């Protein structure tokens, strides 16, 4: 038998382990009673766990979406062959977009019917860049914008 533990530990950690072992050992009403002794309702304790994971999932989805947007922007910029001098004003951006659309053979581009007024500045810039990229390619059928 060892006279002393081999690894330095912290009392708070050991207290936590003792109580954790007890939590894992009990079930049913005994578990509920123990949880209430900590000033928590069992249902609330479970809801806190679900809420934490749901929030983390939402955050992960948002991060993935933003990453996908950044990747798309980079690829479009690459395709369009460098910087485009675009207006900074939203109304002017819309004018530029509509002008570009008018220049393109409508059989080559399919645009989902939408009210352009719903587009953000970022969306408009992205569409203009995509159209520029299409212009540099040889026409090979329908593209979506």
């Amino acid at each position, binding site marked *: 038998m060892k006279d002393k533990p081999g690894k330095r530990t912290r009392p708070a950690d050991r207290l936590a382990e003792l109580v954790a072992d007890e939590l894992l050992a009990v079930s049913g009403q005994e*578990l509920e009673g123990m949880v209430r002794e900590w000033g928590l309702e069992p249902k609330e*304790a479970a809801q*806190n766990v679900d809420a934490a994971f749901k929030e983390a999932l939402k955050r992960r989805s948002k991060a993935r979406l933003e990453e996908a947007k950044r990747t798309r922007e980079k690829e479009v910029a690459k395709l369009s062959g460098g910087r485009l001098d675009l207006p900074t004003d939203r109304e002017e951006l819309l004018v530029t977009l509509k002008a570009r659309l008018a220049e393109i053979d409508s059989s080559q581009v399919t645009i989902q019917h939408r009210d352009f007024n719903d587009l953000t500045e970022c969306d408009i810039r992205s569409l203009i860049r995509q159209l520029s990229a299409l212009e540099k390619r040889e026409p090979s059928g329908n593209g979506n914008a």
Partner: protein
Amino acid sequence: MALLPADDPESEQLATPDEAMSAWRALSQEDKVRLGAFAEMEARFRQRYAPGLTGKDLLNEAAVRVLEGKRNWPLRKIAFIGFMFGTVKSIAGDLKRTNEGKLRAAALTEADLRTGDDANEGINPIENLSAGLDTPETFALAEDQLAAIQSEFEDDETAWYVLECAMEGYRPREIRERLNLSDHEFDAARKRIARRIAKFFLSH
């Protein structure tokens, strides 16, 4: 070191965040209750240097780290509930290092060196509790807290000795051997400790 093939049961297989997410969804209601309660308990233990910390805070941070792949579940080695307990405990334990203004790293290093030099002496629980606290005031507070916890068990000798051994770093099996307790006696003492500590932290 030779790498084991992926299908070897001894190889460490880490779950992906998606697998961890599935494991969360598969948790029983009771396991969620256990985890939620454990996080709350950890938060109560850490109020000294993280005042206002809640179980929800710890759970939120644990879930984020798991789903972002910063904490990986070794699914062959431990059940998901055990992994989540460990993750919450680890985050709570790291608070000393990450809390702004605390000089935990420097103080712990000094205390560790002192323990290494006195290799034949037992670890003083008060020194243990105050390890990482960097002012005389916080040392006094920790001593006060330990004394208060002690007083909860004045009428329960077995529980007190189990608690003392635990706080000195002994594992359950070592404690049973050291105190010559049966499994049943140890489990019963642990139960009493868990309940009284809950009452202590609720009222302090």
